[in-house]
């Protein structure tokens, strides 16, 4: 399975929970702490993110950066660097 991760700007997040609704892996949740604006912000609660970008697409504040594991390239021949 391709793995991914998200980095959420906690000071920009307004805790609207749309990313939590959109996540097919249910890997997002709300934090226990509050941010500068007084909102509970979205955080990664499970380590099963696939980097599908759904959360970032529905985020109204563009607060989410999505990372995904690089796919191993076939053109590199037999010496394919195995991603971590």
């Amino acid at each position, binding site marked *: 399975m391709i793995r991914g991760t998200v980095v959420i700007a906690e000071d920009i997040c307004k805790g609207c929970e749309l990313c939590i609704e959109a996540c097919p892996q249910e890997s997002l949740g709300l934090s226990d702490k509050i941010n500068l604006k007084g909102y509970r912000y979205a955080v990664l609660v499970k380590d099963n993110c696939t*980097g599908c970008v759904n959360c970032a697409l529905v985020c109204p*504040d563009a607060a989410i950066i999505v990372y995904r594991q690089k796919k191993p390239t076939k053109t590199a021949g037999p010496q394919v660097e195995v991603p971590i």
Partner: protein
Amino acid sequence: MDIPPLTNGYEIVYKKPQTLTDTPMHYCPGCGHGVAHRVLMEVVEEMGIQDRTIGVAPVGCSVFAYDYMNIDMQEAPHGRASAVASGIKRVLPDRYVFSYQGDGDLAAIGTGETIHVVNRGENILMVFINNGVYGMTGGQMAPTTLLGMKTTTTPYGREVKTAGHPLRITNLVAQLPGACYVTRQAVHTPTTVRKLKKAFRAALEYQQKQQGTCFVEVVSNCPSSWKMTPAEANKWLEENMFPFYPLGDLKLPAQSN
């Protein structure tokens, strides 16, 4: 926003476009304006037209759109964004010009401008955010408010007898000969956001071909004025707004030879 360094073996697949400024948006949590802003600016970034795009901000919740979009912007009086945009396009015909308006701006006070700009076939993109209420002033009834929908000025629900029928202005402008591309999209799920991005891209590309006005309606939410959580508002949107405002293309440009 600082982007954290790449972890070994990982690559960035999604980040905020450079065409949005770092100013935090003032919109309520879950508001569709933020998504519409971001998707439009993503298209501008992908097409590489940041220095050749001029936007016209309206009066309404999105009145501060010029603070968030990192392109040339102009503020217009209430309802007149499309008229200002057509003036800019006539003076600078090589620029990409769009107006960005809500339903109180475009469909109420600006109905005259809207219809005549489309009828003249000005080569601009008109973005129309439809959430069925006046959001900025506190949730009063807009022309697009659904029948039976409760707002602060229709506390028992909108009635035909006193407030008339909801106005489908997108269907209205689709009949005009000056319209090139008329479509209705939404921003509440990842799928609809992807479709909206394609619609914006198509609309800006048609503008290059000078075929007429492109009109993109975005059916959006207003969790604050609807008095719901963002998730409830999106569910309500699907169940109530979509039967009256069905998504899809209303007019496509004639195939050029």
